[in-house]
């Protein structure tokens, strides 16, 4: 019996046929001479067969319908407010399109470049003196605000350029995901 305890832990592998050749032969030899293990394995076989037969329990009719009704109810009660829906339809959805992303990024970059070019054309004297003017302005209002304005402008332009560069990648990824998910 004490020997059987050792084999009991192997019943699962034996029934799954995952024992290696040597172990399998050892177990077969043991089972031949052991009434307890033979009877247990017979019971286990019967149990698995009986459990598989028990798989035919069915729910009461209409359960699917009841589930869908309950979910539909939850969906209806969880509806967003009218103001939010209006905002979503009028602003969010049109903005949340691929074309809008590209157009917004292009407009933003072109505006900044346009302002820069316009300043150069209308006030050419500013260009060579830009650094002088900046240091003058810095002297007048203190270095902090001017430096902040320059850094903010640089970050803004950098983000614009990054957005423009990333847009095609994001679009490709979004399209790829849609294809993968099939909807």
């Amino acid at each position, binding site marked *: 019996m004490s020997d059987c305890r050792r084999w009991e832990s192997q019943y699962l592998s034996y029934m799954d046929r995952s024992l290696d050749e040597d172990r399998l032969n050892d177990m077969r030899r043991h089972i031949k001479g052991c009434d307890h293990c033979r009877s247990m394995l017979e019971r286990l076989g019967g149990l698995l067969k009986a459990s598989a037969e028990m798989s035919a329990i069915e729910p009461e009719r209409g359960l699917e319908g009841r589930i869908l009704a309950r979910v539909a109810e939850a969906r209806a009660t969880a509806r967003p407010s009218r103001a939010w829906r209006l905002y979503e339809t009028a602003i969010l959805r049109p903005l949340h399109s691929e074309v809008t992303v590209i157009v917004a990024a292009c407009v933003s970059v072109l505006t900044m470049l346009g302002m820069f070019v316009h300043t150069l054309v209308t006030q050419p004297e500013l260009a060579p003196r830009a650094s002088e003017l900046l240091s003058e302005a810095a002297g007048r209002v203190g270095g902090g605000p001017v430096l902040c304005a320059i850094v903010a402008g640089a970050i803004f332009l950098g983000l614009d350029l990054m957005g423009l560069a990333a847009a095609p990648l994001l679009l490709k990824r979004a399209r790829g995901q849609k294809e993968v998910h099939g*909807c």
Partner: protein
Amino acid sequence: MKYRELSDEELIYCYASGEVRAFDIIVSRYTQRLFRFSVRLLGDAQTAEDVVQEAFLRVHMHAGRYKYGVAKFSTWLYRISRNLCIEELRKQKRRKAREAEIDAAQEIVHEPDTESLGAEFDAMLRKALEALPEEQRTVFVLRDMEHMTYEEIANVTHARVGTVKSRLNRARNALAEELGPYVGRRRK
């Protein structure tokens, strides 16, 4: 769109993106399986139905949180159901303890519940399953009745494959001991 051709994972992604009809297919694919699973864990058809409804409700609420490609949808769904079943079993345990206290106080003896699922063996197996610890019962039901792989069961139960196997072995041995003569007779 032909939703029926989509995988579970694609369907739940569609549902999270606002395609309401995708949910119908998910419900039709899993209602019976989840019901069977819950009945075996809980031992009561009515409570199992409530659990299945609640599980789908949670899927609806958290569809956006499902991580595509990280775990199979079915594993996620079974995990939700299992958690609900455990919650229900705890409630039942508390309720039974309270009822026992009341009975003792009022000296009322209840008749045992009538078996709703009928057949003698079903009742015996259900009773034997109820006697198992929850971890062993879950593993037995998922493997031997729902035919999941060890890896899937490990995901549902948050356990290692080795642990799953040893729980299953213990569950089977206990059930075979308990139902032994009966399963032997049935087999013949």
